[in-house]
């Protein structure tokens, strides 16, 4: 039975309206509500469902980041992951941590933990990169099913339905493999209180990037982070005729 590695990222909660720092070095994160990247919740849920179908033996949740990343791992454990690995990265290294670094860490861990499957969200809602799963696949030379909306597992052969621009696509892959989850893959469960309590007893192994021998040199220099140009406030029109008049005026109809 398969062993699954799931990557989870702690990000600013999806409902928070972010604010850019006045010095343009980034966005304000202090005192802002964080939670698990929504796509990663879907990844955990998928792994747990595979385990419930007895297709998976063990689920390992991994997060790279400062101490608070452990909260995100606990959430994954409460949803049904068996153990956690916290790759502690903080300070300047975390500032410049990118998918290239995370994918190298996850690729290393996938090998060390003898995982047959890596599942992660298709993108993190903070950096919006949509790179990590593809890069893990590249580093490990594993096939990668990106933007999955359905995964069927028949004894090591995966039939994956992917969300593509014009509709859907079906591919078949051999394990070991990497999957990235799209929104439609499943509906993540809520962790129940007993499961949250149980999760406190599940092990989280803490390691440092040094233990893995991954090079953390920054490949990208952030020059600035700015507010997008604000749209000019519009007007509320009284009726359809006025709307049509405005659109005709502007030459749209």
């Amino acid at each position, binding site marked *: 039975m398969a062993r699954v590695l799931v990557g989870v990222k702690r990000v*600013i909660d*999806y*409902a928070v*309206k*972010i604010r850019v720092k006045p010095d343009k070095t980034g*966005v304000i994160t202090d005192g802002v509500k964080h939670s698990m990247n929504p*796509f990663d919740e879907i990844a955990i849920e998928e792994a747990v469902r595979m385990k419930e179908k007895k297709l998976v033996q063990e689920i390992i949740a991994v997060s790279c980041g400062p101490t608070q990343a452990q909260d995100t791992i606990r959430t994954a454990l409460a949803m049904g992951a068996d153990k956690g690995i916290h790759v502690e990265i903080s300070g300047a290294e975390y500032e410049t941590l990118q*998918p*290239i670094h995370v994918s190298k860490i996850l690729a290393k861990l996938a090998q060390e933990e003898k995982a047959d499957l890596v599942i992660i969200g298709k993108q993190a*809602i903070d950096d*919006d*990169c949509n*790179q*990590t799963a*593809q*890069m893990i*696949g*590249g*580093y490990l030379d594993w096939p*990668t099913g*990106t933007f999955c909306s359905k995964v069927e597992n028949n004894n090591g052969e995966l*039939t994956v339905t*992917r*969300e*593509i*621009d*014009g*509709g*859907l*696509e079906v*591919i*078949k*892959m*051999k394990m070991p493999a990497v999957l990235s989850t*799209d*929104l*439609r893959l499943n509906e993540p469960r809520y962790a129940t209180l007993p499961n949250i309590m149980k999760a406190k007893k599940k092990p989280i192994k803490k390691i440092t990037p040094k233990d893995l021998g991954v090079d953390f040199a*920054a*490949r*990208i*220099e*952030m*020059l600035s*982070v700015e*507010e*997008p140009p604000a*749209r000019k*406030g*519009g*007007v*509320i*029109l009284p*009726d*359809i*005729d006025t*709307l*049509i008049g405005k*659109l005709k005026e*502007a030459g749209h*109809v």
Partner: protein
Amino acid sequence: MFTACFRTLKVSNKYGLLARYESTLVIAEHNNEIVLPITCNALSAAKKIGGDVTVLVAGNKCKKVAETVSKANGVSKVLVAENDAFKGFLPEALTPLIIATQNQHKFTHILAGATAFGKALLPRVAAKLDVSPVSDIIGIKTADTFVRTIYAGNAIQTLKCKDNVKVISVRGTAFEAVPLEGGSAKCEPAPNGEYKSSLVEFVKQELSKSDRPELTSAKIVVSGGRGMKSGENFKLLYSLADKLNAAVGASRAAVDAGFVPNDLQVGQTGKIVAPDLYIAVGISGAIQHLAGMKDSKIIVAINKDPEAPIFQVADYGLVADLFKAVPELTEKL
């Protein structure tokens, strides 16, 4: 700036040129019949970077597409790889081809459109080159400095890429399309190799059929949200769209509720559109949806809730019941 000049000099010497020398490979996106419009936007980004532009056309039946691309303005060379291995355009097969091409030609930039195809492919290529890719750029400042959005379009990041090969996906709506005329590039075969992947197999595609314009390149988009209440009611929007020759989009709520297929989703995790006119019907205007449409030239919102956040970005708002307003609008147009 100084380092940029220094590097330019170094590269220039290699080529024996005084001018700055960049060379870009654009991975064409096509369906074996036509070149997809996003390729023309990516070509425009490539021209902005400067230097030579080479296009790679790979597919299982792509000679015709290669010919079309060779007529694109500003393309200096088209590399053609026709091979059954590329059926379904799987990244596992295309990546080794791109790496072989890169090893031969030593491009400074590798570009593709930030579509499902480009997003699936480029990071795998970047990993093989051990460089950090840059996703979904909306601007090019210099050959190594790019602009992109983060946090669902709520912040704009300018970054400098230190890797020697820049692997970049391009947001189509941020770059004008290069016309597929006025050029006469030579078609050459791409490096040969055994590209078929034994690890993955393309089974099928189920594409939604539509006579309406394609969502990401349409001049007008009519989108529906949860307020549409059912898939059946989307017919109201289809009628309006047909009157306007518009594409139809949807919010995530409408897709999740099963009103319309997911490939219509406009937003942070769906399609990014920037039409001349965007009509949002029964859409509240969540952050994730705004990320996909707020660069539209004119936004019209029809919503019965005057407090809906969509009115904060709409140029023209109509506080009305969409089930009355949309048929009336369709009729009067």
